[in-house]
């Protein structure tokens, strides 16, 4: 794919096939690729330094076509799932298993590590909504898909499942806790489902799209409410919890939130702040005193207006990070293989890679009850 500017994406047949540049590189032929909600932030032009000519896509599986001389764990022909973070595996942050914060893979390296197919603030590596991808540090993150795992489950293990799972994990859920998830996108859905694995007693999802609320109710066995049908979601949640507030709130929306005119105008229209922080406001205001707010929705530079007074005076713990996919993979592969998680259930659309422009449009405009679109490149099924 080729990014031409906000809301303009096209399939490009003329891009050169990537080459091995370093001994630790591998070239992967993509077999399945997903469009992520965070790709929509790029698509909407909300992420700084998104350059024309980029290839997006950080959720993909593939077949190893070529390996550099230094690669030891992968061999040509391996079917791999490629976590979205590019991690060197040796820097102090990778050693702490913070693979999303690798110090070496992103030239700017002040906050986030390198990601596939994100703006140049995340390193500017070309991504997986393509036929071939160059995967740096191929020995570190890419993982061979276990025997018997469906490829559609595997591709979701590259981002959506670990991210949702880590959202629940960061929430520090204790047995019987009430967990509120803002946003019923793929990550919110997954976070709601994973919350049960940590022993939640009650899971509530807040969104404004009825089809997604309907979906999450069935998929994650939880309560789901439309904030457009209530005066104030914060008051609603307080009432639901006898004015205590929820034990754990998860913001699975990020900078593209709707629901507050003030936030939408300052964040998305005037660009006075980095997108609208509506979901974060609600999360902070509806969590209990001393509760935990887990932020997994993406916020970008430079800053957002947040109710710091509430955070301070309520003694809230904020926990945030990009998912550390490699750290979580062994646990999640086990959950998927044993049937406790069914990731591929959230894929609603399967489209050929050539129709990527339509796929973005359907996903962005929330047409056709779209939850998660999957792209299949033309060379996906070669032997």
């Amino acid at each position, binding site marked *: 794919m080729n990014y031409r500017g906000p809301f303009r994406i096209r399939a490009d047949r003329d891009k050169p096939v990537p080459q091995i540049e370093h001994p630790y590189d591998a070239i992967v032929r993509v077999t399945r690729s997903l469009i992520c909600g965070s790709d929509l932030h790029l698509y909407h032009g909300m992420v700084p330094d998104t350059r024309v*000519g980029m*290839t997006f896509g950080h959720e993909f599986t593939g077949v190893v076509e070529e390996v550099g001389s230094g690669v030891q764990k992968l061999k040509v022909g391996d079917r791999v799932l490629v976590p979205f973070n590019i991690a060197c595996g040796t820097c102090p942050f990778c050693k702490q298993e913070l693979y999303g914060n690798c110090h070496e*893979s992103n030239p700017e390296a002040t906050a986030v590590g390198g990601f596939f197919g994100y703006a140049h603030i995340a390193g500017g590596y*070309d991504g997986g909504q393509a036929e071939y991808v160059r995967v740096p540090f191929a020995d570190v993150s890419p993982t061979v898909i276990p025997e018997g795992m469906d490829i559609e489950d595997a591709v979701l293990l590259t981002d959506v499942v670990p991210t949702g799972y880590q959202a629940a994990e960061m929430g520090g859920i204790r047995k019987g806790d009430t967990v509120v998830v803002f946003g019923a996108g793929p990550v919110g859905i997954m976070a709601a489902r994973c919350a049960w694995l940590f022993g939640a007693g009650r899971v509530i999802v807040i969104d404004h799209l009825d089809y997604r609320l309907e979906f999450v109710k069935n998929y994650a066995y939880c309560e789901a409410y439309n904030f457009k049908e209530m005066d104030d979601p914060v008051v609603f949640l307080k009432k639901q919890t006898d004015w205590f507030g929820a034990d754990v709130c998860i913001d699975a929306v990020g900078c593209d939130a709707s629901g507050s005119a003030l936030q939408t105008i300052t964040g998305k229209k005037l660009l006075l702040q980095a997108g609208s922080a509506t979901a974060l406001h609600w999360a902070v205001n509806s969590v209990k005193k001393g509760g935990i707010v887990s932020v997994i929705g993406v916020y970008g530079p430079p800053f957002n207006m947040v109710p710091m007074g509430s955070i301070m005076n309520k003694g809230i713990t904020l926990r945030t990070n990009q998912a550390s996919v490699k750290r979580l993979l062994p646990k999640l592969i086990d959950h998927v293989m044993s049937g406790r998680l069914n990731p591929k259930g959230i894929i609603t659309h399967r489209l050929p890679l050539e129709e990527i422009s339509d796929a973005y449009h359907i996903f962005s405009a929330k047409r056709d009850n779209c939850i998660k679109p999957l792209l299949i490149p033309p060379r996906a099924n070669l032997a």
Partner: protein
Amino acid sequence: MANTSKTFTPPSSKRSENQEPTENFTNVGTPGRIFSLLGGTALAYYGWKKKDSSLGKSLTTAGAYLLLRGVSGFCPVNKALQIDTAHADFEGFEVTSSVTILKPRNEVYQFWRQLENLPKFMEYLKSVKQIDDKRSHWVAKVPKNIISKETLSTVAWDAKIEQEEENNRIVWRSEPNSEVENSGEVRFTDAPANRGTVVQATISYHPPFGVAGELAAKLLNPAFKELVKQDLRRFKRLLEAGEIPTIIGQPSGRKDENY
């Protein structure tokens, strides 16, 4: 050995000692005087052409003042502010930068001491060849412009390691009459709490082409500072991750596709 003192001295210090002030009333340096002469002439000419207007009169006056400043080398404003650029010792340029690398000290030291390794992470260095244990031949690239990585030409010089303490420090200096007179010191210390090795590099150089080179170098010094910093950052990546990650070969929408 030529220099055995413990303190690090930039290469040009000897040179400034010889520069005896000849005119004691001057307080404007040579680059400043040239600038004043050129600027003053232009302003005075432009002002004289419009001498009927008040703008023209003030421009002529300003031009005349600059001309006087250029010719005499004396500036009352400099005097009032106690600035003296004529007698400032020009010591060459010195840049210091440091980085912490998560590797044992001897490993970091050994990698650097193999001077042939330096072009692997120093962007504008083309090659370093060791002549013998102490002496080496350096070739650096001169880029076509600031953005482009295309090489316009190269400069070369011979350098000699003047002091070295294993796992502690290396001091080198270019041989006399080099095209680019430079010297440097790199120190290796243990970071606290087993957090690796702190590498601190001081590089100093004296630009060629006299006053013009001095002026050009002054303008480019911030860029040079950044370059040293970036090189050290690349050094860290090379040692820690085994490679310097790249996105080379990817279209990025920049006019210049070298990025």
